[in-house]
């Protein structure tokens, strides 16, 4: 089992980042590796269990299933069902945490998978650079293009019943 964990800090609050990445079918609009994407069987893209079928820029087609989605934690988990790429038992998890000191976001993206030994380096690069890092960079660029946010700081104190 191979595990990759990568993280970055973005200069906008979690709510703004979540608005970009929450939609399980929305990666065609923000992730540079994805050309087109559809949710199968007319499901809604925030129905846990839905499947996205999508095509990469090189034409490869993949299917991924949404395993968990939380607006409370700003997190989601998904697995790969079908792919022409030699990645097996692939599960990925994305989560956002507020950086209260500066009104930013800590974004962690991790993936675990099995891969044939001779393909390990190539798959580490594919997942680490072309999927995760490219995703971080694309959202960073989009936030900068959107300009300063109007979202108020994540308040340090939350009252609970």
């Amino acid at each position: 089992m191979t595990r990759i964990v990568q993280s970055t800090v973005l200069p906008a609050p979690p709510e703004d980042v979540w608005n970009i990445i929450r939609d399980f079918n929305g990666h065609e609009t923000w992730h540079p590796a994805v050309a087109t994407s559809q949710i199968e069987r007319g499901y809604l893209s925030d129905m846990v269990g839905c499947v996205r079928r999508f095509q990469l820029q090189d034409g490869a087609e993949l299917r991924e299933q949404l395993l968990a989605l939380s607006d409370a934690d700003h997190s989601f988990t998904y697995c790969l069902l079908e792919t022409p790429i030699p990645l097996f038992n692939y599960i990925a998890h994305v989560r956002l945490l507020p950086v209260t000191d500066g009104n930013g976001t800590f974004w962690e993206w991790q993936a675990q998978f099995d891969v044939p030994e001779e393909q390990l380096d190539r798959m580490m690069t594919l997942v680490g650079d072309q999927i995760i890092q490219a995703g971080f960079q694309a959202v960073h660029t989009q936030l900068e293009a959107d300009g300063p946010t109007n979202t108020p700081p994540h308040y340090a104190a939350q009252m609970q019943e």
Partner: protein
Amino acid sequence: MMARVFVSSVIPATTDQVWDRIRDFNGLANWHPGMRESRIEDGRPADQVGCVRNFKLQSGETIRERLLGLSDFDNSCTYAILESPMPVTSYRATLSLLPVTLGNRCFAQWSAEFECAPNDLGAVTKRLSLDVFQSGFDALKRHFGG
């Protein structure tokens, strides 16, 4: 009333470097400007889960806290207040670190949950979030040159 305070920051050092500085449950006074004169009660080791630290704030007030959990795997420390000048009960706090792989930095989060009278909540929240948590992070940022 149950309340929660959450403060987080980014420290310009690796997770290992920051953890080295904050791991010692008896070492708060070494890195936090608001604390002094810490000792572990009953001569126990500072990384023995269950041990109690007894330290003073710069104001001279005494706080006693019990170590509930310490993880070198997660880089986190959880503790409860046994005695303090603050009007809180059932106080439990966690300080933890996560690596920011892009740029060799460290994401630090410090949160507390406690019971508190509604009239005291504003003052307690302000004291914890600014004088304790953010003040500690500011000291770490200064130490590591941020």
